């Protein structure tokens, strides 16, 4: 096994965040990431699709973070954006939205599931997430920027979700949710921070490299892909 590749699947660039995608991409590359996904909020999209920068040895994936209160409209948006994006994130925050996102296998990640006095997940939703292959996003920015009672609240939500995820084998994704260059953290520091927040070492590593790779593979099928588990392999010396 070689060196793991690190991905940050939730980065917001201008006009959603403060910095341009070029600045974010070059800083992420300097930090040692192999790729980031540009996931601007769907309610603050620019009129035309931004061009993704081409940097050698680094990939910028097209993604989106859907913000929608109405579950049936959310399903519509998922259908609309699914084919043009590599990473599809749903911005959770209410029982109905969380449920709609976790029961839709076309969603990749659910971010910010917590609301009011709930961590956002429960036994039923965790099971749905595992069945549909939707990952739960652990976002760094709110954890880094708050202190005291607010952070304590978020960390206990995180711990609750973590226990559910372990029980039902839900995948986790660690991402920065960066709104500017100053919100990006290097992979090593992200891993250490996650471990201090209660993740195990291998869980954190999976959440920042293996799970993102799996999401990419799912959304960028090879040329002979027919359906899940069925693929036409070309060449003579396969066996």
């Amino acid at each position, binding site marked *: 096994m070689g060196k793991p590749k690190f991905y940050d699947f939730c980065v917001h660039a201008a006009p959603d965040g403060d910095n341009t995608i070029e600045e974010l991409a070059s*800083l992420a590359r300097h*930090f040692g990431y192999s790729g980031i996904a540009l996931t601007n909020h769907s309610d603050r999209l620019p009129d035309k699709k931004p061009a993704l920068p081409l940097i050698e040895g680094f990939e910028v994936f097209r993604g989106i973070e859907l913000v929608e209160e109405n579950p049936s409209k959310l399903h519509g948006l998922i259908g609309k954006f699914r084919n043009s994006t590599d990473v599809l994130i749903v911005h959770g925050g209410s029982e109905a939205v969380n449920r709609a996102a976790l029961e839709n296998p076309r969603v990749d990640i659910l971010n910010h599931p917590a609301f009011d006095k709930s961590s956002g997940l429960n036994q039923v939703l965790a099971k749905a997430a595992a069945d549909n292959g939707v990952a739960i996003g652990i976002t*760094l920015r709110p*954890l*880094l*920027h708050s*202190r*005291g009672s607010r*952070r304590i609240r978020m960390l206990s939500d995180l711990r609750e979700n973590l226990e559910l995820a372990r029980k039902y084998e839900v995948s986790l994704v660690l991402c920065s949710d960066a709104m*500017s*260059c*100053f*919100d*990006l*953290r*290097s992979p*090593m*520091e*992200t891993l*250490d*921070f996650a*471990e*201090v*927040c209660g993740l195990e070492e291998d869980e954190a590593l999976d959440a920042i490299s293996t799970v993102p790779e799996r999401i990419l593979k799912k959304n960028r099928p090879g040329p002979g892909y027919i359906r899940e588990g069925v693929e036409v392999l070309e060449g003579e010396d396969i066996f």
Partner: protein
Amino acid sequence: MKRLLPSLRAKKRYLAFELISEEPASRSDIVREVISSASSLLGDVTTSNCGIKVLGFEKGKGIIQCSHTKVKETRASLAALTRINGKRATIHVLGTSGTVKGATEKFLQN
């Protein structure tokens, strides 16, 4: 006084870091913010065990000393630092070493 043998001294790790910030900061600003971020994230007891010291800082790069068993906690509290003097800032750890010389040669000279 006779110097303590290297094997008897408390083991340390030295983290070479660079500061990415909106405005330049001084060593004392960094010390204050690192300690406050660590005590907020880890609590005062764990922070005291980490033994965090900012050894030197110039031209945006420097070295932080910590206990060799608490590297993870120290890095996490450096990651939790978001502002210096109210201006946005990030500390990026370039690498860790067991000696100041090693950290300087490997990560700070180029």
